[in-house]
């Protein structure tokens, strides 16, 4: 694996993996996560992937992408700790598989760069029709979060747990903030992104040609990038003074119970132990939550725990009958206490180590997983590879798991319950 840092202050990582039939190229912009700006970045990202100076019409753009062997171009906006990551990616088949000696990937990369750096402007700002179209779709995406009650409940828990931090905002912002965006504000956000974002470019597959590298250099050359976002600004979730409990009622058949806990944050030994601890607690079908809360007590159809390492919290989410919610909550806390007290078997411990290691090694077999891995770690000084993390996981001891569990503190409980319970 090679990595190079360019003096024009963007970073390129090349993973020369030849096992796939396709290659992937992504440009990732990291900006500080702020409630007041997320919507503008989200809308800019949507507009840039549907039109540009060269492809003013999104249908013509889609026909071009299809003719580049179904090149998969996407923009994804995600929270990565206290950063907002705006990813633009494109992937298509290697030249070897093209019909007539074409070079689809090189053409696809140039197309993506054109989308990012040469937008469809009208009178020096984003075109009103494009803004109107993409705003409507983004607003519908925000509103449709309600359709998936599981995801909705998780988002509400995060909103409540981080209510006085920018992290609590939804990654697209909200409807009101999108409606308030103007063509000029969007242009400002685009310029801000290009000039100040930390930029990480991932190239998975064939390395970039010298001519493409020169073109990328040229694009960044034209920007004033003196004040780039720093690394390592993420702070862990604030410890609570009291546990916050929020219950809301919606038209649902099955209640949702989501619990947020403070845990270790960052990229060190403690977070590796937390990863193992979280898996023993609520990872796979061998975990404490699955075997006890679901299988033995039949309290939930699903009950799982996830560690969000870069912000330092663990989330447990479960689907419960409303009359079981209190009992389920108590049992989830009982199982956490069991881990704190070391009441887990060698089998459970070893199963977690093996399971995590397996998942980590499998990420090498998936282009998007590799891209996501190096993107979510781009803002850390010492980024471990999946293999390195797998080695670190193998070295975790039971005592370290117990120590990690003892650092876990309940912060927020969010319940989404049926309306007739009100």
């Amino acid at each position: 694996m090679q990595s190079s840092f360019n003096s024009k202050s963007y970073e390129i990582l090349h993973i020369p993996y030849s096992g796939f039939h396709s290659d992937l190229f992504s440009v990732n912009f990291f900006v500080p996560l702020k409630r007041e700006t997320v919507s503008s970045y989200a809308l800019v990202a949507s507009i840039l992937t549907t039109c540009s100076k060269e492809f003013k019409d999104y249908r013509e753009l889609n026909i071009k992408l299809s003719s580049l062997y179904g090149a998969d171009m996407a923009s994804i906006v995600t929270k990565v700790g206290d950063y907002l990551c705006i990813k633009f990616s494109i992937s298509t088949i290697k030249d070897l598989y093209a019909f007539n000696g074409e070079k689809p990937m090189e053409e696809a990369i140039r197309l993506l760069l054109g989308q990012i750096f040469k937008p469809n402007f009208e009178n020096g700002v984003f075109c009103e029709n494009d803004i109107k179209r993409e705003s409507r779709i983004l607003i519908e995406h925000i509103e449709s979060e309600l359709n998936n009650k599981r995801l909705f409940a998780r988002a509400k828990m995060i909103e409540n747990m981080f209510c006085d931090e920018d992290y609590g905002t939804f990654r697209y912002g909200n409807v009101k903030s999108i409606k308030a965006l103007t063509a000029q504000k969007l242009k400002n956000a685009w310029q801000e992104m290009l000039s100040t974002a930390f930029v990480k470019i991932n190239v998975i597959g064939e390395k970039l040609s010298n001519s493409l590298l020169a073109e990328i250099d040229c694009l960044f050359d034209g920007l004033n990038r003196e004040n780039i976002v720093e690394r390592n600004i993420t702070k862990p979730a604030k410890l609570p003074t009291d546990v916050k409990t929020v219950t809301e009622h919606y038209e649902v058949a099955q209640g949702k119970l989501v619990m947020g806990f403070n845990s270790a944050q960052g990229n060190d030994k403690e977070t590796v132990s937390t990863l193992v601890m979280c898996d023993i607690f609520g990872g796979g079908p061998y975990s404490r939550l699955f075997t006890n809360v679901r299988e033995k007590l039949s309290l939930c159809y699903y009950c799982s725990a996830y560690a969000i390492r870069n912000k330092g919290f663990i989330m447990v989410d479960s689907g419960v009958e409303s009359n079981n919610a209190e009992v389920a909550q108590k049992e989830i806390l009982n199982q956490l206490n069991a881990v704190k007290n070391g009441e887990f078997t060698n089998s459970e411990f070893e199963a977690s180590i093996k399971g995590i290691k397996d998942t980590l090694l499998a990420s090498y077999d998936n282009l998007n997983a590799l891209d996501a891995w190096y993107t979510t770690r781009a803002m850390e000084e010492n980024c471990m590879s999946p293999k390195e993390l797998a080695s670190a996981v193998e070295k975790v001891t039971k005592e370290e798991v117990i120590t990690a569990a003892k650092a876990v503190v309940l912060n927020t409980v969010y319940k989404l319950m049926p309306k007739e319970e009100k």
Partner: protein
Amino acid sequence: MQKQIFNSAIGENYTLYTYPCGFKVYILNKSTYNSSYAIFGTKYGSIDNCFSVKNGEKLTVPEGIAHFLEHKLFESEDGDAFSKFAKTGGSANAFTSFDRTCYLFSCSERFYENLDILLDFVRHPYFTEQTVNKEQGIIGQEIRMYDDNPNWCVFFNVLKALYNEHPVRIDIAGTTDSISEITPKYLYDCYNTFYDLSNMFLCIAGNVNEEKIIKAVNKIVDTDSKKEITRIFTKEESTVNQKYIEMKHSVSMPLFTLGYKLPAEKELTLKEKIVYSAALDILSGECSTLYKKLTDLELVNDEFDSELLCGNGYAAVLISGESKSPKTVQEEINNEIENIVNNGYEEKLLDAVKRAMYADAVRRFDSTENVVMQMVESAVFDYEMFEELEIIKNISYYDILECLKTLNKDNSSLSVVTQK
């Protein structure tokens, strides 16, 4: 046992072993990969509610039993399969659909131990009144979880509207009432009928050794005989059950699925399925004039999608999305079908769609999971995996037109989930 090797121009090849009893084993080696993926499955799904063996007594079983059986197979007298996989680091799961039930694992180490566990637990059922009662509670919660999913509801409602009798209209998990009728005897009857190796398949992709796999398989194949299963369906009318169905739900805007019922006396061939896929891309995909028109009119967003759903006795084209005005979308879709059938479409579209479909088929081989799913498709419908690549290249302009002619607006149903 018959062994066939299939090669392709994209540098992939796989071996198919067919045992005298009909059991099929597909193996594709990906030596550069860390992980491997395996599915041990049966051609038995939620639609198989009525059947007989060797033309014997007809048996009708409760709805949702195939899915119930899938849950129960993980349990045995000496514990559950998950705990065995946990010791060997295999990540296991299973799923039931209309016409198949699949048990799977993925792993990066100890593949053969995981394979032994898979081949063992699926072939050793264990059902008691107590374990059945417990599972009714868990599956009841699963059913309620799906009741909260409006996308699931709009999909199953369109099937209810399209089909009068065919069991594809029934939810895969059944209902809380139907699963309360399930007994150990019913489970054993279904198991003993459909979980016969003559009705099953094993599909594997990853960094694996064929000889070791066949050695493991040879231990479990102990007969050459084939089970003669007759799957019994009530005659299905060619016309739809109802043209419109609506449900209220907690959604931000209406969801819709428009279904066109297709003739299904014969199963669709591989070529027909591929042509439908291309035709739907041309009619309503991201490159289509229809998608552009509907987007510009603010009638759909990027959730707009289409698929062909087909199997034993059923076939339908489904076009779905979110819209403030589903009936207007329906009208526009019907107008566009008529327009293309009468006036044709841009030829450059077909070339672009073919390239994209070809690349999708090639890229499927990048994922062990995706390629194993494709093998399962081959096993269930009995076709050769690499045929698809050539068929795509040879789709003609007129294939698309003939295909779109089968979408009859007078034999269609619109399902809408709207706000409460």
